[in-house]
C-alpha cells in the first residue's frame, strides 16, 4: 500500500462531498491492475505468441561485416532456391523514407544503397518456419564496399569533408540549434559564483524484456492490411506504415496485443513491422517477424550519449543568474526522435529552478552506430545529471547545503520560465523537503565515514507535449465511452498499454467520472480501428490526456442519465449526484435510484449511450518572454503540467575495488493526484533501478570498427535482484487544479534525479566528483589513486 492510503487527503473540512471535486472514491485506490491475473496465469497474448492460419515467418538478413559500407550487390537466388522459402525482400522494394519526425525522416524498411551501422537490415526472407528463414538469410550474398567508420561525434564533424553518413547532411550534423534568452554574458559578469564543467553520458538501452515482434496479414481481395505489433505508438506506426507501403491509413489497422515494456524503445516503427507487412502483401498470407535479443540491441533506439559543456552563475545570495549550455549528442545512424530529444535537452535548463538568463547550443551528430532515440525521460536525464551535480558543487563553493541552494532556487506554482514554459502547479519544494527529512540527509551529508555517502538530486518531467510530431492540430487523445445494458461501461481509446498500467488507471478515472466502481469498467485500448484516436504512450502523457477526455465524455453521459433519472425521481437533473452506482438528489437523499436502473431505462427508451471526449493540450509558443520573439525549437518542452521529484541516494563505495553499492533510496514525488498509488510506487521503484543501472554499469560497447561487442544480457549488465537498493518512495500531497482529477505524471520524472543523486553521493563518500556515467569501478579506483597522489604530492596538509 502506498502512503496515499494511510492519509485522508480527500476529506476537506466544510465542503459537502458532492461539491468537492477532490473527494474521490475510485481515483486514489491502490487497486490491483486489470490485466494482472491474465498475466500471472500466462494467458495474456503477446505478439510473438500469436499464430494465424497459414502464417509464415520472416527473418532479416543483417550486415555483420561493416558499420558503414556501400551495398554493391545483393544476390538472393540461393536463398530463394532453398526449400521452404517463399519470398525475399530487399530495401529497394520499399524505398520510401520513414521517421517519427517528418522533417528528418530518413530510414527505410531495409537498407537502400548503403548500411550505416553494424547490424542494419539489408534483406529479408519469408519461409515456412523460422529455422528455414534464418538459413535462407545466411544464403543471401551481399557485396559491400567498405567506407570509413565514424564512431565519435566530434570525429564525425571533423571528417565530414572526407566522409558523410547522409547525403543531405554534409557536415554530418543531423540538426542543430541555438536558443538565447536574456543577456547571459552580462548576467555572468554580475555573478559571485561561477562554475564551468564538462559532462558526458553513456549509451544505455531500454532492455524491455519482450523483443519486438510483428504479425502482419494482408488481404489481397479487399486490400486491407492488419498489423499486430509490440509498439507503444500505434498511431505513429500506422502513419509510417502508410508512407512506406503507399497505402491509405484507412486500409491499415494496427492492433497491440499485450506489450512487454517499451521505455521509449518501441516508440517508433521498427523494421520488423515493415518487413512483416511488406512480405505479407507480397505473399497474401500472414507473416510474423520476431527479433532475437541481439537484433533488439542493434535496432532499439537507446539513449543519446551527450557531451555537455556547462556554465552556471549565481549571485552572492545563491540565486541562479545565468546558464550557458552546449550539448553535442551522438545520434547514431538515423534521425528518429533526434530533433525532439535534442531540443528537450535545451528546454531542461528552465526547470525546476528559476533561470533568468539562458543560452543553449545543441547539435545532434550522425555516427556509424545504432540509432539513438527516445529512452525513458528522454532529453531530461543528461542535462539533469549535469545541473544537479553542479548545484551541489556551487553549494559547496558557497558553503551551504545543496538542499538549501536547491530550495532557494526552486520554482513555485504559476511560474513562467524565460522560454515561456508555464508550470501551473508544483510541489517541488515539498518533494525536496520530504526526501531530505525522511532520509536524514542534513544529519548525514558531509558527516558519514569515508566510503559512505549520501547524495541529493531533484528533477521534473513533462506531462505530455504541446504539439504533435507532425503538423496537426487535432486533439491528442479522444476517448469514447459506451454505456449499455450488455457491456456495462466500455472505454474505447487507441492508447497503448505497454505495462505502465494505463488501462487500469483509465478504468479508475472513468469509474470516478461516471459514479460507478472501477470493477464495472472495461477498457479497450491498442487498436486504431476500435479505439478513438490517441498519439501513443510516450512523454508521460496518457494519464493526463486520457483523464481529460474521459471527464469530457463522462460529463455528456452523466447529463443524459441525470435527465432520465430526474424524470423518474421527480427532481431537477442539475440537482442530481452520481456516485457509488447510485443517482440521488443532493438535497433529498431519499430521492435515490440505482445507476443501473437508470441506464436500463435510458437504453430502453433511447438506445445505447455513447459519448466521446477530446483532449487538446494548451499550445504555448516557444518564445523569449522578454522580447516576445519566436525561438527555434522552443516549442519543444512545453507541457500542460509537470511532475516533480527528489531522490536521496545512500551509497557504500568499496574504496579498494571501486564497486559502488546503492544501499538506500529515499524518494518523494509530486505526481499530482495518484490515481493508483500502488502503481505510482511501482513506476518510481522501477525508474530508480532502471537508471541506477545506467549510472553504474549499463553500456553498449563497440570496437574500433563499430561492431557491437555486447548485444546480449551476459555482457550488457542490467541490475538484478541483488543490486536492488532499499527504497522508500513517497507520494507528496499534490493536486493540480488545472488537471483532470488533479493528475500529473510519474513514469519518466522519477528517472531524472538518479544519475546526479548517485554521483553526489559518491562525492560525499570519497571526495571525488565524476562528470561521466556510467561510473565504473575502474573509474573509481583510478580517481582515488589520482586523489591520493595529489594529496601526497602537495605535502602541506591541505586538501
Amino acid at each position, binding site marked *: 500500500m502506498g502512503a496515499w492510503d494511510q492519509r485522508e487527503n480527500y476529506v476537506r473540512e466544510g465542503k459537502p462531498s458532492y461539491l468537492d471535486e477532490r473527494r474521490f472514491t475510485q481515483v486514489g485506490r*491502490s487497486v*490491483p*491492475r486489470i*490485466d*494482472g*491475473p491474465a*498475466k*500471472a*496465469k*500466462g*494467458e*495474456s*497474448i*503477446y505478439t*510473438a*505468441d500469436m*499464430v494465424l492460419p497459414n502464417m509464415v515467418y520472416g527473418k532479416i538478413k543483417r550486415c555483420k561485416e561493416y558499420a558503414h559500407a556501400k551495398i554493391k550487390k545483393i544476390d538472393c537466388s540461393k536463398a530463394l532456391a532453398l526449400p521452404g522459402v517463399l519470398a525475399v525482400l530487399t530495401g529497394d522494394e520499399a524505398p520510401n523514407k520513414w521517421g517519427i519526425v517528418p522533417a528528418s525522416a530518413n530510414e527505410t524498411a531495409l537498407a537502400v544503397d548503403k548500411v550505416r551501422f553494424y547490424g542494419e537490415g539489408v534483406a529479408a526472407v519469408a519461409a515456412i518456419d523460422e529455422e528455414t528463414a534464418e538459413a535462407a538469410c545466411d544464403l543471401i550474398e551481399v557485396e559491400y564496399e567498405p567506407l570509413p567508420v565514424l564512431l565519435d561525434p566530434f570525429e564525425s564533424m571533423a571528417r565530414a569533408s572526407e566522409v558523410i553518413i547522409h547525403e543531405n547532411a554534409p557536415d554530418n550534423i543531423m540538426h542543430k540549434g541555438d536558443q538565447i534568452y536574456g543577456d547571459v554574458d552580462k548576467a555572468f559578469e554580475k555573478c559571485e559564483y561561477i562554475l564551468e564543467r564538462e559532462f558526458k553520458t553513456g549509451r544505455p538501452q*531500454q*532492455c*524491455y*524484456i*519482450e*523483443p519486438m515482434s510483428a504479425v502482419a496479414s494482408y488481404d489481397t481481395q479487399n486490400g486491407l492490411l492488419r498489423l499486430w505489433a509490440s509498439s507503444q505508438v500505434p498511431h505513429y506506426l500506422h502513419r509510417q506504415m502508410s508512407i512506406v507501403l503507399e497505402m491509405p491509413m484507412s486500409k491499415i489497422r494496427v492492433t497491440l496485443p*499485450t*506489450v*512487454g*515494456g517499451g*521505455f521509449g524503445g518501441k516508440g517508433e516503427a521498427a523494421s520488423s513491422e515493415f518487413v512483416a507487412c511488406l512480405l505479407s502483401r507480397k505473399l497474401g498470407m500472414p507473416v510474423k517477424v520476431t527479433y*532475437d*535479443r541481439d537484433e533488439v540491441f542493434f535496432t532499439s533506439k537507446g539513449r543519446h550519449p551527450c557531451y555537455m559543456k556547462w556554465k552556471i552563475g549565481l549571485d552572492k545570495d545563491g540565486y541562479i543568474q545565468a546558464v550557458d549550455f552546449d550539448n553535442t549528442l551522438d545520434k547514431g545512424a538515423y534521425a528518429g526522435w533526434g530533433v525532439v530529444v535534442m531540443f528537450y535537452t535545451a528546454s531542461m535548463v528552465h526547470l525546476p529552478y528559476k533561470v533568468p538568463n539562458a543560452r543553449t547550443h545543441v547539435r545532434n551528430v550522425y555516427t556509424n552506430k545504432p540509432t539513438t532515440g527516445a529512452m525513458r525521460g528522454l532529453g531530461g536525464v543528461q542535462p539533469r545529471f549535469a545541473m544537479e551535480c553542479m548545484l551541489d558543487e556551487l553549494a559547496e563553493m558557497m558553503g551551504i547545503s545543496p538542499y538549501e541552494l536547491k530550495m532557494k532556487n526552486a520554482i513555485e506554482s504559476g511560474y513562467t520560465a524565460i522560454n515561456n514554459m508555464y508550470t501551473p502547479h508544483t510541489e517541488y519544494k515539498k518533494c525536496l523537503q520530504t526526501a531530505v527529512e525522511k532520509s536524514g540527509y542534513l544529519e548525514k551529508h558531509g558527516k558519514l565515514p569515508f566510503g559512505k555517502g549520501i547524495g541529493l538530486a531533484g528533477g521534473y518531467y513533462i506531462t505530455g507535449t504541446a504539439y504533435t510530431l507532425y503538423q496537426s492540430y487535432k486533439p491528442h487523445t479522444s476517448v469514447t465511452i459506451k454505456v449499455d445494458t450488455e457491456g456495462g461501461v466500455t472505454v474505447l481509446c487507441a492508447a497503448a498499454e*505497454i*505495462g*505502465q*498500467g494505463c488501462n487500469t488507471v483509465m478504468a479508475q478515472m472513468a469509474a470516478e467520472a461516471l459514479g460507478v466502481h472501477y470493477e464495472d469498467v472495461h477498457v479497450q485500448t491498442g487498436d486504431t480501428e476500435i479505439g478513438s484516436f490517441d498519439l501513443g504512450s510516450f512523454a508521460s502523457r496518457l494519464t493526463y490526456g486520457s483523464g481529460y477526455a474521459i471527464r469530457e465524455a463522462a460529463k455528456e453521459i452523466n447529463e443524459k442519465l441525470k435527465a432520465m433519472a430526474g424524470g423518474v425521481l421527480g427532481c431537477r437533473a442539475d440537482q442530481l449526484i452520481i456516485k457509488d452506482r447510485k443517482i440521488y438528489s443532493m438535497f433529498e437523499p431519499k430521492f435515490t435510484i440505482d445507476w443501473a436502473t437508470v441506464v436500463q431505462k435510458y437504453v430502453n427508451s433511447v438506445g445505447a449511450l455513447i459519448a466521446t471526449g477530446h483532449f487538446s493540450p494548451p499550445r504555448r509558443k516557444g518564445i523569449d518572454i522578454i522580447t516576445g520573439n519566436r525561438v527555434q525549437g522552443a516549442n519543444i518542452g512545453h507541457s500542460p503540467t509537470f511532475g516533480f521529484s527528489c531522490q536521496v541516494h545512500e551509497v557504500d563505495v568499496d574504496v579498494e575495488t571501486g564497486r559502488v553499492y546503492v544501499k538506500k533510496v529515499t524518494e518523494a514525488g509530486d505526481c499530482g493526484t495518484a490515481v493508483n498509488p*500502488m*502503481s505510482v*510506487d*511501482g513506476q518510481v*521503484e*522501477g*525508474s*530508480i*533501478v*532502471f537508471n541506477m543501472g545506467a549510472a553504474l554499469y549499463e553500456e553498449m560497447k563497440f570496437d574500433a570498427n563499430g561492431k557491437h561487442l555486447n548485444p*546480449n*544480457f*551476459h555482457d550488457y549488465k*542490467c541490475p*538484478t*535482484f*541483488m543490486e*536492488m537498493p532499499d*527504497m522508500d518512495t513517497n507520494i507528496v500531497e499534490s493536486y493540480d487544479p488545472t488537471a483532470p482529477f488533479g493528475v500529473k505524471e510519474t513514469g519518466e520524472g522519477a528517472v531524472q534525479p538518479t544519475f546526479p543523486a548517485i554521483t553526489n553521493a559518491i562525492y560525499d563518500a570519497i571526495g571525488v566528483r565524476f562528470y561521466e556515467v556510467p561510473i565504473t569501478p575502474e573509474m573509481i579506483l583510478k580517481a582515488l589513486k589520482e586523489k591520493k597522489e595529489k594529496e601526497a604530492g602537495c605535502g602541506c596538509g591541505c586538501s
Partner: protein
Amino acid sequence: MKQLIKLEINGRVYDVPVSPRDVLADVIRKKVGLTGTKKGCGMGDCGACTVLVEGKPILSCITLAITCNGKKITTVEGLALPDGQMHPIQEAFVNQGAIQCGFCTPGMLMSAKGLLARNPKPSLYDIKHEMSGNICRCTGFKRIIEAIEVASETMSEGVK
C-alpha cells in the same frame, strides 16, 4: 530427422515430434501451444523462459527438448489450482503490484515456485540470491520480493 518424445507438461502427456536441436521453450510454445513461457533473450540470461523440470527451475531456451523426454514439466499454465483459481504465488504477484508489463512474470513465478518448494521461508537474501536469474525491467524488483514474502506466508498458513 524428427523423433517422437513424451513430455508430461502440467500433468498432461504430450507426444511431440522434435529435432534434436529444438529447444524446450520453442517446443512448449510452438508445438504444445503453451505460450505463457516467454523468450526474452534466447541465451539463458533473462530467465523469462524459466520452467520447472522435475520441480527444478531451468532455462527452457537453452535446454534441448529431447533431453526432457519422459520428464515432468511445469509451466506457468500449470501453476493455477485445478479449479482455475490462482496459486498463492500468482495471487500475491497480482495483489502486491509485482506485475507491470508481465513479460518476465511467468519466469519469475516459476523461479519463485522452485525457490519456495526448496525453501518455504526464504530470507530477503535468499530471495534476492535465488531469484537473480530473472530480470525485470519494469518493477525494480521490490514488489516481486514482497509478493514472494506474502506467498511464503500464505503457503505456510495453508500447511498448518
